[in-house]
């Protein structure tokens, strides 16, 4: 009888111990998962911002000339030509290492105008997508004016 009671006691202690252990492990993994998810979103955001920065500093788009040099700016005429070139499969593949799976759009806000899609490469399966928008200047070389615009980068994962 005493032996039986002792055995039940031991088993009870072990059960409680393992319940606590698994509760601790579950709590740990749940918090890890949410931390990883947060890091992934932050990394995607960072990547989208990097893409925008890269695009704005490309000689194919930037506002760097003999007399005028402006940061955070795209030349409107270069934008027209480059977006036409990037609609061709060969050039799209050439710039894939630069822009990956993403869509880059530029929209004039003041004065208002129509959105121009610079680069569009959407994967077949989209698990997640994140958008980063930043104000930029759009330069017109004929009028020598700068419009207020927005560059929108949508990255796919």
């Amino acid at each position: 009888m005493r032996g039986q009671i002792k055995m039940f006691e031991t088993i009870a202690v072990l059960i409680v111990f393992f319940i606590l252990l698994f509760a601790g492990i579950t709590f740990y993994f749940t918090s890890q998962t949410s931390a990883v998810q947060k890091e992934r979103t932050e990394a995607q955001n960072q990547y989208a911002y990097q893409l925008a920065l890269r695009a704005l500093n490309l000689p194919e788009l930037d506002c760097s000339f003999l007399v005028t040099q402006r940061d955070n700016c795209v030349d409107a005429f270069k934008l027209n030509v480059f977006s036409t070139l990037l609609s061709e499969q060969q050039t799209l593949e050439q710039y894939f290492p630069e822009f990956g799976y993403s869509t880059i759009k530029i929209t004039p806000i003041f004065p208002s105008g129509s959105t121009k899609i610079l680069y569009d490469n959407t994967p077949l399966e989209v698990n997640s997508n994140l958008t980063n928008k930043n104000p930029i200047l759009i330069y017109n070389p004929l009028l020598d004016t700068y419009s207020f615009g927005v560059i929108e980068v949508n990255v796919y994962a």
Partner: protein
Amino acid sequence: MAINKKAVEMQFHWIFIIVAGALILAFFFSFALKQRAVGQERLQYTVLSQVDDILAKSQIKGGTAQHIPTPSQGLAFSCTQGCDCAFQIDNAQRPFNQPIFSPELLRGQDTFIWSAEWKQPYRVTNFLFLTNPDIKYYFVYDPQNSPSSTLHRELTKNIPPPITQNKEIVTQFNYQNVTVSELSNLEVEDYSQHKFVFINVPTTTPAKFDKTEASAINIDQSKITFLSKTRRLSNFQENDIQRHIGITSIYAAIFAQDGAMYRCGIEHALGKLSTTSKILAQRAGQIQRETLCTETPGGCILGAPITICQNPNLDVCQNPIQGSIIESLCQQHTIASAPLSQLDVNGLDLLKNRLDTENRKLLQQSCPEVF
């Protein structure tokens, strides 16, 4: 009998405790080790992302030098003959497709990153050169030989100074100027890597380096020869020969680990040149169309065919006006499309100067600059 039973029971009791305890400990140890491995891998990827971020930002601004702490596991770069280039930290790898030139492995002191613009004459791309003070470079030249001393002067004048923090050198491009007469007396110093840069002089292995691993490049008027030697070889052996396309490409060869990395980076830059020149030519065509194809008098003739007025999407490179800036850009686009081994280097050089002159002329004519 009762005593025997109790004694046996005690033994089993203790065996049970030991086995159960061992199992629990083993479980926790394996869990901790697994977590450690996962943590280590996560850290590698985090560091890799940070390095990738820094390299990307370094490429944006040309003519700058900065430093990054080198991961303790080392930062390795490699390029295959097929131009699959990647950098890695331990087992974590990330591909890159930019003109980055670096030794095979960077370890120890902070990494020195130098970003140099490649202009033709407009900025095409930025070349990234990586090294650290643990790698020693020897610029071997002949002061009596004009081509050698001129090129040596040109190379050394653009090298950025060491990067300091609180008046202490954090990292630098560690090089030494050696004349051909001093080469035979050169001592082997304690560096992880040695690289010789023979500037328009014959390749010679310094006597004291016969049992030392080293690499070298030999630069002449048009080509760069990549060489290396192991401890067993007393002389340098030729590995690769590539063409160079100006001073920036020579720096690329100095920093690149081998001919493959050099060729991949330069061909990437040529690809960018081909695209950028085409974009600038089409843009110039648009400017011409907007200024000339209107009822208002005047306008800017930049070299696009007259039919651009009727066809706004015309490829301006089909029949550009001879001697115009658009024609020069189209020629540049064609030349840059060729592989490095077949590149018309002289043609590229001539076009660079012609484009600069033509672009400046446009300003005098009150036309918008092309670049």
